[in-house]
């Protein structure tokens, strides 16, 4: 087995016993179960729509914060691993996957199991998108967490940056976009807005989900443009590429910093 595989194997073993991860899975389990019970399990669309709002906030928050903390906590152990005959790039890949995979699994189990129990397959395509989007956001924000913790020597500063990144992307970004839209309301904004949506992984995830849930009609002309561009094959391709870049670029930057870092 490769070095990455070996590291991953033991990181997975450790992570699957971690309390925060179990709590994270339980959180989605309870939330999903409750939403299915109260929202009516027959179609499940309402549950998916509500879960979307929860997931778009919680998945980035938890993966960024706990990811950053995990890297700082493992600092001494990482040094011990680096003193073994292993290449830094392989180690980085193993550590990253060792966080991203269990986090994604916890999300899939937390949301997937209640749906499997209650039914609610009326929203099958929405549910599938929700699960995919959750996994993608986990990959993106784990990569960002690793990048932050590798670049910031100080733990407190790193955590501050992590919270700042989450705040900016999950909350402030939408406000800024809205402000922009209001200020330039007299201009045709659909395409610039579309670009702005694609530029933020959380917004991209939201738009992709809304289109799946056939709520685009609620968004008027803008929704129509979004549907036209993002609804088709080209749109899916753009979304996949954008999320791929949002994962790949931080992983690449983080690994480069990790390879050059003085521990």
């Amino acid at each position: 087995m490769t070095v990455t595989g070996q590291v991953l194997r033991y990181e997975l073993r450790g992570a699957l016993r971690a309390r925060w991860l179990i709590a994270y899975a339980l959180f989605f389990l309870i939330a999903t179960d409750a939403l299915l019970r109260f929202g009516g399990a027959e179609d499940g669309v309402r549950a998916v729509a509500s879960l979307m709002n929860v997931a778009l906030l919680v998945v980035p928050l938890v993966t960024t914060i706990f990811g950053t903390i995990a890297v700082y906590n493992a600092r001494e152990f990482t040094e011990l691993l680096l003193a073994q005959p292993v290449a830094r790039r392989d180690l980085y890949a193993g550590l990253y996957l060792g966080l991203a995979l269990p986090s994604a699994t916890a999300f899939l189990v937390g949301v997937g199991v209640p749906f499997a129990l209650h039914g609610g397959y009326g929203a099958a395509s929405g549910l599938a998108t929700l699960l995919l989007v959750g996994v993608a956001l986990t990959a993106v924000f784990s990569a960002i967490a690793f990048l932050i913790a590798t670049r910031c020597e100080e733990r407190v500063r790193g955590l501050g940056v992590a919270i700042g990144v989450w705040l900016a992307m999950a909350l402030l970004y939408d406000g800024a976009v809205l402000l922009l839209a209001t200020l330039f309301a007299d201009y045709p904004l659909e395409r610039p807005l579309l670009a702005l949506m694609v530029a933020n992984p959380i917004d991209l995830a939201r738009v992709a989900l809304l289109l799946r849930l056939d709520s685009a009609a609620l968004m008027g002309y803008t929704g129509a443009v979004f549907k036209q561009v993002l609804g088709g094959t080209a749109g899916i391709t753009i979304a996949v590429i954008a999320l791929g870049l949002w994962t790949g670029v931080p992983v690449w930057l983080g690994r480069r910093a990790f390879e050059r870092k003085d521990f």
Partner: protein
Amino acid sequence: MILIDGLEKRFGPVEVLRGVDLAMLGGRVTAIVGPNGAGKTTLIKAILGLTRPDAGRILIDGEPVGDDPAYRARIGYMPQIARFPENLTGRELLAMVASLRGAEVARDEELLERFALHEPMEKPLRTLSGGTRQKVNAVLAFLFTPRVLVLDEPTTGLDPASSATLKDKIAAARNAGAAVVLTSHVMSELEELADDVAFLLEGRIRYAGPVRQLKLDTRQFTLERAIARLMSEEAA
């Protein structure tokens, strides 16, 4: 054997190592001593490849310390702080490091026995006391019969019996031909174990040679006094 040649390292404006030349021989224990901030940790980290020097080079049994990690298969490292993944057991930890080294999961039954570690090895590492974790740390460092041992404050947190066991283990590795690099703030411990001493001050080696010679040169009976003498001479 570890050969260090013209090693320099700066962190921003601070020059931590300013041209260190040092040879640490197989079959001998070399103590690296010096006041806080003298560059001891940076020197050790450079040997392990954790810190990249700005200039100079390090050879370990003739192999250069650099981008190829293969040379680290010769090294056993015992860090000062024993912090391991919380949810793995000691046994899993040993298996993990063995797999990374491409080695069989060796077991030093004798050391496990003397440290009374058989039972704790089955428990999650987070539940072990600091001293017990330090014992696991020691077992890990010696596990693959390394040619070079880097031990950073190895007896910190150990009870006297375990500390004695560890010292026996260090002496045995030395007698088997390993080059042992040791740091400690406990001078009596260094006195007991060290054959050679490298005195580091402000990023330079101020003395390197046999402990016995240092005592003769400074006309002191103990290593502690001899080092103190060196420091006061430097200050003068």
